[in-house]
């Protein structure tokens, strides 16, 4: 059996010769099938069950009846859901942009001619190893007590009340916490990307008298395009599903001003007993996330390809 093992492609499309090996060794199937079975049982089956319950009035317990598409119809008339989408998108877009700018800037600085590189690199990764929930409790304390006290001491009246206390500013607190936490991982990814750029390119550019900004736009940024794409797509996807940050920081408040879609689904569906209705919301949300990620990928790839 070892003689007709297929010769998989090294990269991209396989050379024509390999297509002639039509038989796949059975061992490859043995390698994947248990995983596929488990994945189907613990992910796909629950997904289908969940989608089915979005067509019922199930409360999460007790009796239920089939209600057809009624939950979906009702979703479109619910302004609380529109508000949650509005907040989630505002938050996710601002955070994605902020986290990528900050992470890229820090990564470039860390890749520059500085001292204590390894130490700094180590420090910047710390937020990624801490639980968001716990960090959120700490930030909650900082925003509610420390920042107002400092502002008072410095006489900055606009900051003497906690930013979490106003429906207009609470979302900024959530952004700060999320960016603080998420930047850690993105910095490392960008650093990895920056180190794939041959230093000769910069040396050549410097000889040509290119400014640092020019070097960034014509060498650095194009060369890390793939890293930029992956960071943008994954950041936006993660931020669209924001949950822990909000639970620990604002619990969706004040009022419902920082209620994200995930928080709304959890609250209404599990604590509010409208499981079927909020699952319908979650199904719509799934398609929204997929659509956005797909569009984003397309746009970024086209941009990447044009370099």
């Amino acid at each position, binding site marked *: 059996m070892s003689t007709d093992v297929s010769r998989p492609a090294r990269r991209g499309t396989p050379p024509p010769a390999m297509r002639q090996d039509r038989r796949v060794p059975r061992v490859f199937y043995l390698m994947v099938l248990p995983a596929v079975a488990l994945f189907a049982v613990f992910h796909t089956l629950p997904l289908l069950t969940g989608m089915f319950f979005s067509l019922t009035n199930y409360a*999460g317990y*007790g009796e239920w009846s089939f209600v057809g598409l009624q939950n979906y119809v009702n979703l479109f008339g619910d302004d609380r859901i529109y508000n949650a989408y509005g907040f989630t998108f505002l938050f996710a877009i601002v955070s994605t942009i902020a986290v990528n700018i900050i992470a890229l800037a820090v990564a470039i600085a860390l890749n520059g001619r500085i001292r204590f590189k390894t130490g700094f690199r180590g420090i910047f990764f710390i937020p990624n190893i801490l639980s968001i929930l716990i960090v959120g409790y700490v930030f909650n304390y900082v925003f509610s007590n420390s920042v107002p006290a400092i502002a008072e001491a410095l006489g900055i009246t606009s900051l003497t009340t906690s930013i979490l206390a106003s429906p207009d500013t609470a979302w900024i607190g959530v952004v700060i916490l999320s960016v603080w936490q998420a930047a850690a991982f993105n910095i490392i990814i960008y650093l990895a990307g920056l180190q794939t750029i041959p230093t000769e390119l910069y040396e050549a550019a410097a000889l040509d008298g290119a400014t640092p900004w020019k070097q960034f736009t014509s060498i650095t940024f194009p060369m890390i395009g793939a890293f930029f794409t992956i960071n943008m797509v994954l950041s936006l996807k993660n931020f669209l599903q924001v949950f822990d940050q909000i639970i620990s920081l604002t619990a969706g408040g004040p009022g419902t001003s920082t209620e994200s879609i995930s928080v709304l689904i959890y609250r209404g569906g599990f604590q509010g007993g409208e499981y079927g209705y909020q699952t319908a919301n979650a199904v719509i949300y799934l398609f929204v996330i997929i659509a956005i990620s797909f569009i984003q990928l397309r746009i970024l790839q086209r941009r990447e390809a044009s370099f």
Partner: protein
Amino acid sequence: MKLPPGRAPRAVRYLVGGTALALVLSACATQDDVVTLNFFQFKPEAVANFNGIIDRFEAENPDIRVVQNHVPDADTAIRTLLVKDKTPDVLTLNGNGRYGELAEACVFADLSDLTVVEQVRPAVGDIIGELGSCSTGEVNAVPFSSNASGILYNRGLFAQYGVEVPTTWDELLAAAQTFEDAGVTPFYTTLKDGWTVSPAFVNLGGALQPEDFFDRLRAEGSDVAAGEVSFSKDYPEAMEKLTTLYSFGQDGAASRDYNAGNAAFGAGESAMYMQGSYAIPAIRASNPDANIGSFPYPATNSPEDTVVVSGVDVAVSVGRDTEHPEEARRFVEFLMSPEVVQQYAQEQSAFSPLTTGAETTDPALAGLAPYFDDNRIIGFIDHQLPASLPLPQYLQELALGGSVEGFLSVMDREWSKIAARTIPNEKD
């Protein structure tokens, strides 16, 4: 990090085997003659109290072992246990709207045959019965502890400024004004926790709403705006009064939470505090010498109409499909014995829901106890609202400076939407 490749699968086997062994061992521990009851207890601050009660019960009943299960986020935990078909044998829940929804879904056993049911104060029994039950006539929970919501006050500050306990709305405003003029915060408010506004809402709303408001509202279905009763029509007075009281709060209330409020009121930073009996243990924890008094909300200028809002803080139920119904009932009867109820009430500054042996001796509750004893109590009206309506959040917005009209219209709108999308099961 490089694992020796050949040995890798063995590591998996050890891991799986080890965990399985641990599980088998823990399962074996329960296999003797002793019946183990799984006791779901939702109050994190009462874990020690219940451990004491369980110790005494186990000493008297050596054939039963009770395992207290206290969980983070009890609302989610009880739901996941139901989904798993692992309804606890005995459970405590707060007697609120969510309890009612579970009771109506027939999660709990009928306890109407227990003798303790007859010893429960009728008014308290009604409060929990009105939340819902599996079918009419069933008793799905017995009240273990009752709370009362009112206004707590600092006796020292009242004496110092010569303020009498107010019995009418005008006296209450005058008292608040006196303190404000003297530079004392009239009410310590804690707007970081939206739910802390709910007590004022249930007291003012409960006292000022028309008769059978929620029954009539439910009958209107999904078109509240066109109906005879609605929040916009019937709640303006209550909400105006609520915002008036909150206008007497201290600066920076928006970033203060319930814990801060208990500590601040305990330390004498305000003359009054709009919370109930349930806050007293926490206030005393921060200052054991706090000289606390209490009085009911004088919602109107006629003291004879004043009532106290009381809820069942801890309700005890038995899982409908428990494998040990006899043992579970024995534990419930023990829990409900007057000594146990009385001791818990004293430890937690609660009211005993029983008619016998139920003296309320806590001086902090002296202002509310007479109303409780005379059955001048009403339930928490927020328990009548569907759990998916975010009342605390809307109250928080209002108290932070939102408009009364905005609050009332969002309440009507949410109520209508939820009524429209709630499709009842056909009962068989």
